[in-house]
């Protein structure tokens, strides 16, 4: 480890430092009273400072050639850059949108922010992995804080259940991942992703890759490894749900990106079919299950499953087109999903989370801008122009057709028609005339700015996507 190595992971270090600071600050301020009411937004400011510092450190580094550190385990290239951007956007929005909720439901702010930042750093490590061992470390660093976040509401049985379920199933999936790493190493004699491309095509390698897919597929909530998602999403406190719904996808798909299009292009014929089948199953099941939901958190959980299926189209199609589509979709997904959750975080129904669809009734009358943001995010999730979700889907269809995966594009297209039904239902309830009397809307400047940023992202990536498309295009240039 040298100073050069350390400067390479400076953004991650900034997050870790901010996490420690937030933890200590809150412990100092409130002492043993974890659920203390009288806490300012200091922890949130520290976390936000950490995210901004990381963004700055990311920005000052020239976007030139790839740099490798830590004995070839860590790589900072175009893909790292975009993944970091997505992860930091998720962290920044996650921090900005939660204060009203944390305050109202008395969640320990220091712990929340520290865990959020550490999880973000984990996702960033996954995006920078050039070695299966680092990928595993990133996966663990990503998922462990999420287990705790899911169980953060100590007084809520559902939150405890969610945390335990997530932990047990997650540990199970991680075990698969480690086993996969071992098998791949056994088959190829290396854990270095940049050398896997020359590995002999033996059954052991395929078995190992299958286990890796299980481990990553669990985090991304791909069918058939998605069963945890609805329960955990519904039970976890809403800010945690919001954040995990995006960061887990960023990390997992960064991992899949490093694994498939980049490290194992020689397996594309065999694995493209397999991944395409998983993508089809995920899109169909996620969308159909979401149709029946009346709880918005569950609905967004299944919608998250469905979107995992869409993103997998890009991985299955591979190549520069598929990879750039994945990267673009991740950025878009962060903005639109957190925007949707951000509006829900402002609501409260008689001391509980307002997470039923009908709780949104009449939002337009009380918080018009929040209602409009929610509608815009729903339209974007449905993949309709002029929002970001449309450009993201266009990219995916292009990748699929370029790789002659017509069926994949068609299933993606038709399932998005299905998804319109439930997304627009949410949006039209929010814009309808009725009023859910029991529901109160909290106004918070902090969250307001966060929502504005998310909405701006949804529109910006949809209307003037040029800058970001150039960024992702440049990120995947090295792929062939």
């Amino acid at each position, binding site marked *: *480890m040298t100073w050069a190595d350390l400067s390479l992971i400076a953004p991650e270090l900034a997050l870790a430092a901010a996490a*420690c600071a937030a*933890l*200590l600050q809150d*412990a*100092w301020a409130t*002492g*043993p009273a*974890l659920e203390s009411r009288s806490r300012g937004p200091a922890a949130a400011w520290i976390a936000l400072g950490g995210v901004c510092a990381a963004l700055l450190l990311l920005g000052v580094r020239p976007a030139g050639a790839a740099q490798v550190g830590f004995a070839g385990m860590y790589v900072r290239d175009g893909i790292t850059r975009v993944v970091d951007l997505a992860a930091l956007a998720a962290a920044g929005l996650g921090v900005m949108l939660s204060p009203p909720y944390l305050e109202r439901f008395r969640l320990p702010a220091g712990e929340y922010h520290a865990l959020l930042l550490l999880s973000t750093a984990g996702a960033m490590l996954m995006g920078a992995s050039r070695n299966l061992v680092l990928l595993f470390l990133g996966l663990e660093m990503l998922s462990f804080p999420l287990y705790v976040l899911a169980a953060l509401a100590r007084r809520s049985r559902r939150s405890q259940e969610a945390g335990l379920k997530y932990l047990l199933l997650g540990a199970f999936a991680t075990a698969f991942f480690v086993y996969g790493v071992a098998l791949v190493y056994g088959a190829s004699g290396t854990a270095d992703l940049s050398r896997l491309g020359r590995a002999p095509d033996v059954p052991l390698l395929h078995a190992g890759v299958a286990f890796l897919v299980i481990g990553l597929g669990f985090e991304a909530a791909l069918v058939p490894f998605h069963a945890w998602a609805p329960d955990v999403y519904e039970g976890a406190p809403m800010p945690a749900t919001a954040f995990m719904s995006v960061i887990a996808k960023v990390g997992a798909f960064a991992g899949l990106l490093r694994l498939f299009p980049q490290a194992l292009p020689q397996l594309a014929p065999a694995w493209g079919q397999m991944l395409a089948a998983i993508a089809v199953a995920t899109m169909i099941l996620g969308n159909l299950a979401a149709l029946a939901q009346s709880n918005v958190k569950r609905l967004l959980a299944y919608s998250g499953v469905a979107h995992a299926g869409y993103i997998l189209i890009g991985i299955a199609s591979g190549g520069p087109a598929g990879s750039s589509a994945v990267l673009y979709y991740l950025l878009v997904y962060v903005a639109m999903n957190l925007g949707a959750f951000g509006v829900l975080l402002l609501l409260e129904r008689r001391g509980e989370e307002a997470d039923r669809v009908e709780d949104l009734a009449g939002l337009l009358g009380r918080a018009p801008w929040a209602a409009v943001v929610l509608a815009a995010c729903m339209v974007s999730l449905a993949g309709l122009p002029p929002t970001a979700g449309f450009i993201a889907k266009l990219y995916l269809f292009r990748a699929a057709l370029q790789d002659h995966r017509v069926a994949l594009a068609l299933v993606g297209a038709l399932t998005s028609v299905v998804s319109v039904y439930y997304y627009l239902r949410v949006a039209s309830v929010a814009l309808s005339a009725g009023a859910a009397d029991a529901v109160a809307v909290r106004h918070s400047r902090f969250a307001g700015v966060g929502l504005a940023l998310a909405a701006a992202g949804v529109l910006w990536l949809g209307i003037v996507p040029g800058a970001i498309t150039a960024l992702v295009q440049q990120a995947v240039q090295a792929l062939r």
Partner: protein
Amino acid sequence: MLSGYAPVLVHLVLAVLLAAAVLGLHMLVGGRRPTVEKVLPYESGVWPIGSARERVPVRYYLVAMLFILFDVEIVFVYPWAVLVRELGARGIGEMFTFLALLAIGYLYLLKRRALEWE
């Protein structure tokens, strides 16, 4: 590549065979006369008192976990201590960074009063 491991395999097979042989022989030729004393959880003459499912204060687990956590970190310190001269100033710096991170965790626990038994 794997041929170097052949002795290990032979060793494994022999160990399994031996254990199976001894246990199997015992089952075949050994006699069994169970008595009340013999089937007790503790055969050595200690009468069990009360149920084994005793409740322990939850703090016990907390402290026990924290103890293990810090205890395991010591594992890293031992090899460092042995090699401290060879590692030089840089080794000292690295270890103290590590200890500082541990200290942050410790301070956090202290402030949250996780270590107080009341």
